[in-house]
């Protein structure tokens, strides 16, 4: 495992032991998941719809309590009663649709909502709002605006800012690029990359976009049928198309092109255009 992915770090931030989760209608959404996540990683959860990615994310955040097994976030057991306040300071969850997460009358109140839940005084709250909004690129001029009437990209930034104001060590973002054009997608992903690389947040994204995974993630968890099918670095995971097929996932096109040219000596774990060019040039 490569060290840049944080795999060799012993600094565990999330420990999942024998996690099983059943919905109230009896549907077993997750079954016996055992996995650890380390500080500073950029992780992507991939898999087809209904495989349990979002449910797993909500379990990590403590929104869903494990039916069996245990999840420790920075040593805190998510199943404990009244653990929510401590938990949210360690792990934040940005929902797929920002409209589900915005319920205040102004952008300022929206970002201040979570710190106020932590019973901070108004001065501390303001400080957090200013920092979170600055990092997220939400200008102070928007503070009095109603969040619902802003464009989607901005609403998403406000949703992320509203989580950043909690200063969580881990941020889970559910489908950050869904419904956004290329420019907006890149902006959101660059922003998450900055949070990861410059501010040291552990980032977990849930996504279906393999190009985004190849470009930004360092570690990939492939889920299928409520279980972890495989887990490794991006190169390791995408180098195994047969395994990915079980989860109805295909590697990015550039990887598939390299795999198709394997008989010509191309590596099967190419994940970027630049890498492909390098390999091409070395052969021409």
């Amino acid at each position, binding site marked *: 495992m490569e060290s840049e992915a944080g795999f060799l770090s012993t600094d565990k931030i999330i420990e999942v032991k024998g996690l099983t989760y059943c919905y109230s209608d009896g549907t077993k959404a997750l079954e016996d998941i055992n996995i650890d996540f380390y500080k500073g990683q950029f992780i992507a959860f991939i898999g087809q719809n209904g495989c349990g990615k979002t449910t797993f994310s*909500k379990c990590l955040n403590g929104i869903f309590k494990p039916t069996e097994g245990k999840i420790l976030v920075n040593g805190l057991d998510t199943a404990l009663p009244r653990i*929510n306040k401590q938990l949210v300071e360690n792990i934040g969850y940005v929902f797929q649709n920002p409209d589900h997460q915005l319920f205040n009358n102004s952008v300022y109140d929206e970002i201040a909502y979570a710190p106020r839940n932590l019973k901070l005084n108004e001065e501390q709250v303001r400080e957090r709002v200013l920092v979170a909004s600055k990092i997220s690129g939400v200008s102070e001029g928007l503070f009095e605006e109603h969040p619902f009437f802003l464009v989607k990209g901005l609403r998403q930034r406000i949703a992320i800012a509203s989580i950043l104001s909690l200063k969580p060590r881990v941020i889970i973002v559910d489908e950050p690029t869904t419904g956004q054009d290329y420019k907006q997608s890149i902006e959101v992903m660059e922003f998450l990359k900055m949070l990861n690389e410059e501010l040291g947040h552990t980032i977990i994204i849930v996504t279906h976009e393999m190009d985004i995974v190849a470009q930004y993630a360092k570690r990939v968890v492939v889920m299928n049928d409520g279980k972890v099918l495989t887990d490794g670095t991006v190169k390791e995971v995408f180098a195994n198309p047969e395994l990915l097929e079980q989860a109805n996932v295909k590697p990015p096109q550039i990887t598939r092109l390299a795999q198709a040219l394997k008989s010509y000596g191309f590596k099967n774990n190419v994940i970027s255009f630049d890498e492909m060019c390098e390999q091409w040039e070395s052969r021409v």
Partner: protein
Amino acid sequence: MAVERKMQKTIIGFVPYQSPIYALHPLVRLVIFLVTGFIPLFVEIPEVNILFLIAIIGLFIYSKVDLKKLKMYMPMVFTVGLFIFVTYLFFPIAKGEKILLYQLGAVKLYYNSIMWATCIYFRIIALLFASIFYFSTNRERDMLIAFRSLKMPFVATYFLGLSLRATGIFMEDYQIIREAEQARGLDVSDLSFVGKIKHFSMYMIPLFTLSIRRCEEISVGLYSKGTVISNKIDGRKRPDYLMSKNPVTQKDIFYSAAIVLFFLAFCSLQVFGGVFSLDNSPINIAILKLLKGG
């Protein structure tokens, strides 16, 4: 994922996957609902309504409804009780003989008022459980079949279907918003009662905004599919898939008629004979006897 599921998610809640009550046509189930929904209105005796309640719970068990799901209604059961008893405490009724039980300043606790509150409470709870039973054993599709079997106009059932769908989406959004609040450190148990009420109003902003956006999407979707709100297409009756799959048989009509006749007979006992009046309540009679020292 292959699992053994006992309950099936519907737009409104959960229904059992398999249940003996599904042997009855949706029309018969609707008639049962209407009858069980009206019976408590004709009953004043709390004991009878408690027996009725037990019968409804028996129906839950017979129909294989997961009784754990009823836990979510418990706060409502207590809140309704609290409101009714407090109302009758501060605004006592004039009906019946006034027997003062206790006085604290200007607040007087009259027996007849408390007894009447008990009667109203069990009546409402019986009604509530009868409604929960219907929605716990009928999917939206069953409701539409039942209403169309009653020859309700197509337009009305169409709007009913859309309304049920909207209700389900509204509740799903509500659930997600609650999760989003939890993800931002809100612990509702920390809030006072007034705080909880104020807090509830906060949900309205995203819920209504989402609803308006969804309404527009659904309207555009219906328009783009050339939807005509009529049960006739080019002058001919629109084919009805639901009814073709679930025709009403003579057996269903017989069952429905029998239930309605039972209901009419039951109501007659109260309307013409006052059989279920509070004056005939054995508990009421016994307590009155005790209070009057006889």
